[in-house]
């Protein structure tokens, strides 16, 4: 069955980018103000789910040819991996550090290791949520 839903498709094309931008904003707002990797991951997943709903699954699979299970595993790898960094620097497991750097154009920027951890969390959440939703939808 082919549903030709022009309005939904047109709105989605624009709103997906708004949702993705919001996800990026939430991600970088994290660890100091409301936001963070988990929520950003959920919002990212919401954008993908919207695409899967509006277009059919084959189109999106072709457009984004990645295995979301691997994405989840990669995220977990990144998050646990930051913990293992502690062995290299001889500090307690999961220690985080941050510093301020002068970056041209952006000015003073705070860079912290917790961002890597949060990125791992985001990947894990996106991977898990999409995997769950896709496997449920394949069942029906």
């Amino acid at each position, binding site marked *: 069955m082919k549903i030709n839903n022009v309005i939904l498709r047109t709105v989605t094309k624009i709103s997906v980018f708004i949702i993705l931008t919001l996800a990026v904003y939430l991600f970088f707002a994290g660890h100091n103000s409301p936001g963070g990797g988990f929520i950003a991951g959920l919002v990212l997943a919401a954008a993908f789910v919207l695409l899967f709903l509006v277009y059919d699954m084959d189109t999106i699979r072709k457009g984004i040819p990645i295995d979301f299970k691997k994405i989840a*595993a990669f995220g977990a*790898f990144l998050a*646990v991996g930051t913990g293992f960094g*502690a062995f290299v620097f001889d500090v*307690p*497991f999961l*220690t985080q550090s941050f510093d301020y750097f002068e970056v041209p154009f952006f000015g003073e920027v705070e860079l912290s290791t917790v961002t890597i951890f949060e990125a791992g969390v985001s990947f894990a959440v996106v991977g898990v949520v999409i995997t769950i939703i896709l496997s449920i939808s394949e069942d029906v």
Partner: protein
Amino acid sequence: MNNIIVLPMALPIMLGIILIFLRPYIKTQRVITVLGLLATIGTSMYMLHWIQTDGIIRLDFGGWEPPFGILFVADSFAVILVTVASIVTLICLIYAFSSIGEKIENMYFYSFVNFLLAGVNGSFLTGDIFNLYVNFEIMLLASYVLIVLGGKRMQLRESLKYVVINIISSWFFLVAIAYLYAQLGTLNMAHISVLISESGQTPLLTVTSLVFLIVFALKSGLLLYFWLPGSYSAPPTAIAALFGGLLTKVGIYVMIRVFTLIFYHEPQITHTIIGILAGLTLVMGSIGAIAYKDIRQIVAYNVIIAVGFILVGLAVMTQEALEGAVYYLMHDMVAKSLLFLLAGTMITVTGEKRLDNMSGLIRNYPAFGWMFFIVMLSLAGVPPLSGFIGKVLVGQGAIEAGSYVLLALAFISSIFVLYSLLRIFLNSFWGETIISFDDEVPMKRGWIVSFGLLTALMFTFGIGAEYFAPYVADAANTLLNPQIYIDAVLE
């Protein structure tokens, strides 16, 4: 830096994640898993040795000082169990290599075994009660996956019960933690203990402790074991052996930890209830063990008897009884895994599940038969095998404390264990053989190796009891004097 104590949990997690990427390469997965487990065993043995010289080690995650941060605390009791759990996992995997089948191996089997071990080791090592909940969940999530792998009808039915029971008990766990946090405002176990000993164990705290007791009773199968025989006989042999060896032991460990470190001020209430529950578990487990003819059921009821027996040690709470409980925990992890492996193999080679449908196995598989005989003696507590020293010490403790009823129940249950397994031995191993030598399923080398290793371990624990004595005595000493643990954590 004490980072080493996170390794028994972090290493399996990391390896489990890496193995997801290596899904098609089963040989590589096996090699990585074995190497990772050997490394885990090595580090935990090193830690155990280190604790004897330097006392309890702790690690504050991210450098957050207790009681504010999450921490791992490695004392002898925890690390002994971590070591034995890792060894048992390795041996069960050696069995799995030649029995589980490519179809299951390809479904992230090794990843989830690693996650299961990470959850088990994390539960042993953590010093924070909410972190304990998280580790329990890691362990349970992995076990949910492992119990359904294969997707047989019985597995799906039993896993549904298993998941529902565990979700309910996890919910109770959360509620109990919330009660505790509302009253004390801390989650660090040592800090909780300090606050309770300062303010006294109020009736409300005692009620909270009983909620914890219900949770751990459900998880360890103390009286609330109705879910256990079904779920433990559903999965493939190697997985059932892992479950039988490890999962209930985590519940027992946590119960011992919580009721010696935190809620030890009202033993006439809490420990009396534990004693009653342990006694009832022994009685009902013994009845169950001789009531069935399905060998998987008999073996599962043997797990329940052991739970009751170990918690007799907690109920009487003397130095000897706790030492006995620690010895018996070590012994039971090994012996129960071996028993599950042997029972599963009997079903594999005969294709029968009832003991009266098998006969004369010892003619076909002599070594296999004698190992069954040895594990039976060990579980019954015959010296010089590993079950003996635990039983003697628990009995000695019960006599000192004057708990003669528990003493009688504990030792009568040993006779029931012996009878239930002897029945299997007489019916299935003796008599006329039903398998002709032509169509006998050859015993694979991996199976014999894993049985042999576990049997050797039972002899080591039994004959080498003297060698393990300082470690076990230190474990029991820390359990009996919570101040040692508290000082190590809060300084």
